C-alpha cells in the first residue's frame, strides 16, 4: 500500500523502472548493440524484407529499398558481419548473382527491436 502511495505521489520510480525495461532490449545476447545497427533505415529495411521472404537477391533488395548499389552493399555487409544475414554468391545464366537470407540471430534481433519500439510507445503513451 505504501509503495502504491509513493507511486501515485511521485511518478519518477515507475518511470525509471519503465526506462530500465526499455534499455533491457537494447543489447543482444552476445552483448552487441543491435539497436544501433538497426537504427538505420536501409539496414532495418533489409532485415524486415528478408524476414518475410525466403531469400532476396541484391537487385530485388535494391529495388525494394530504392537504395544505390554502394549504399546497399555497405549496409548489407554490416548486417552480414553482425551475423544477421547470410550472403550467397552464385552464377545464374553466366551472370553473377548475390542472394541474402536472414539468419536466426537476425530474426531474433528484429523481434527484439520490434518489442523495443512497442515498449517505447507504451511508456511514452503513459507519460503523455
Amino acid at each position, binding site marked *: 500500500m505504501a509503495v502504491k502511495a509513493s507511486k501515485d505521489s511521485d511518478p519518477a520510480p515507475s518511470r525509471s523502472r519503465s526506462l530500465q525495461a526499455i534499455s533491457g532490449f537494447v543489447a543482444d545476447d552476445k552483448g552487441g548493440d543491435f539497436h544501433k545497427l538497426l537504427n538505420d533505415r536501409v539496414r532495418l529495411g533489409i532485415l524486415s524484407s528478408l524476414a518475410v*521472404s525466403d531469400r532476396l537477391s541484391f537487385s530485388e533488395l535494391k529495388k525494394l529499398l530504392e537504395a544505390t548499389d554502394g549504399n546497399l552493399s555497405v549496409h548489407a555487409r554490416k548486417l552480414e558481419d553482425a551475423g544477421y544475414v547470410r550472403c550467397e554468391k552464385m552464377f545464374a545464366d553466366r551472370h553473377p548473382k548475390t542472394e541474402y537470407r536472414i539468419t536466426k540471430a537476425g530474426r531474433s534481433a528484429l523481434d527484439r527491436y520490434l518489442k523495443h519500439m512497442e515498449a517505447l510507445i507504451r511508456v*511514452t503513451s503513459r507519460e*503523455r
Partner: protein
Amino acid sequence: MPIDIQNQAEDNLRFIRSAMERAERVSAVSGAGAMAMGGIAVTAMALSAGVESLHTRLLIWIATAFLAGGAGAAGSWIKARRNNLSFSGDPGRRFLLCLIPALLVGVVLTVSLLPTQQVGLLPGLWMMLYGAGVLAAGTYAAAPVMHMGGAFLVAGLFAHALPERWSNVLLGLAFGGLHLYFGYQVYRHHGG
C-alpha cells in the same frame, strides 16, 4: 520530448511493416498463373453455355476448378523458380494456409449439395468461399490478390440474388474475368 520518441518509434514500426509488405509482393502469387486460370474459366463458360442440365454444367465447372488450380500452382512454381525463391517458403505457405480451409469447405458443400434440390446454391457459394479464402490469403500477397477476393465475394452475392439461369455467365465473369483482370495487375506490377 516523449512525444518525439513515440512518433519516431511509431514511424519505425510503420517503416518495418511497409518494407515487409513490399518484400512479400515480390514473391508468392503468379499473375501469369492467375491469367491462365481465367483463360481456362472462360473456356469452361463457353463449353457449358450450350449444356441444358445444371448438373452437367456444374460438373464441367468442377473439372475446370481442378485444371485451373493446377495452372495456378504451376504458375506460382515457375515464378518462384525464376526468382530463386522457395515455392514452400514462408509467404507461400501462409498464403496456402489461409486459402485451403475455405476451399475444403467448398468441397464438402459441393459433395453435400450436388445430389439435392439445393444444387443451384453452389455457384454463389463457390464464388463466396473462394473470395473469402483469397481475401484472407491476400494478406500475404500483392494488393490486387486481396481486391480480387473482395470482388469474388460481391460476385457471389450477385449469384445468390440473380435467377439460376445467370449462374453460368456469373461463374465465367468471376472465375474468368476477375482472374484475367487481377492476374494481369499482378503480372504487370508485382513481378510476373
